[in-house]
């Protein structure tokens, strides 16, 4: 009798944990990548999976493992959120603009090569307008077209006017 109750309890734990895992998986798949701060939402879903895992371990007669993971799971979640917040959040906002503004060279102090590069950059950004938020594209763009630090500095010193104005 006691064994039967124990097995029913075990199977209940396993079924609840599997339902939670399925729900979390569907939730993660439904979240779109272009959402703002989507990583925190995914971490939140994965917290559910952590607790479902603890429940499954209890159901599988592994209370020690469940206890260890119950203590460690929030630490891991916090570490990952912290790493994203301080390490990678800045990179996400740093994307190639849709239209690169034109450079107004009043005093004609800019080198012709820099002007030519500016025109090429503009063409390139127009071609890649659908992939503006791609980080790898951004870094490649910087490496290829902004060149060394002196050129970046000279570009930053220019008087930049938007095309809209």
């Amino acid at each position, binding site marked *: 009798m006691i064994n*039967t109750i124990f*097995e*029913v309890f*075990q*199977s*209940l734990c*396993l*079924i609840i*944990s*599997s*339902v939670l*895992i*399925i729900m*979390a*998986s569907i939730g*993660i*798949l439904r979240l779109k*990548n272009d959402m703002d701060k989507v*990583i925190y939402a*995914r*971490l939140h879903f*994965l917290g559910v*999976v*952590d607790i479902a*895992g603890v429940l*499954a*371990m209890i*159901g*599988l*007669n*592994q209370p020690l*493992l469940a206890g*260890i*993971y119950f203590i*460690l799971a929030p*630490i*891991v979640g916090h*570490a*990952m959120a*912290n*790493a*994203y917040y*301080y*390490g*990678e959040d*800045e*990179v*996400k906002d740093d994307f190639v603009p849709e239209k690169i503004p034109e450079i107004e060279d009043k005093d004609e102090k800019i080198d012709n090569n820099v002007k030519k590069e500016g025109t090429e950059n503009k063409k390139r950004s127009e071609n890649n307008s659908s992939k503006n938020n*791609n*980080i*790898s594209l951004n870094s490649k763009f910087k490496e290829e077209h902004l060149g060394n630090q002196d050129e970046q500095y000279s570009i930053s010193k220019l008087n930049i006017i938007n095309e809209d104005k």
Partner: protein
Amino acid sequence: MEILLISQYVLMVSLVIFLLVAIKITTNKTIAMGLIGSATFSLGIAILLLVYGNLHNIEFCKDIALALLILGVVGTIAFSIVLRREKHD
């Protein structure tokens, strides 16, 4: 009892689905997303090993699951520290 066996199989199926989702997260473009995906993948594998060991009475599956859980956590925390330091140094 049958209900325990069935629930174990149900858990295995849901874990396999979750592992596929974890692979999808891992292949995302940001590094932190890859970190999250790999951490959860190790959790899913550990639970899957526990279920499989329980089904077929394989004792060493529990040891591997314990190692995966602890080392996965240690690796995730270590990588998080490295990723965090990147900006401040």
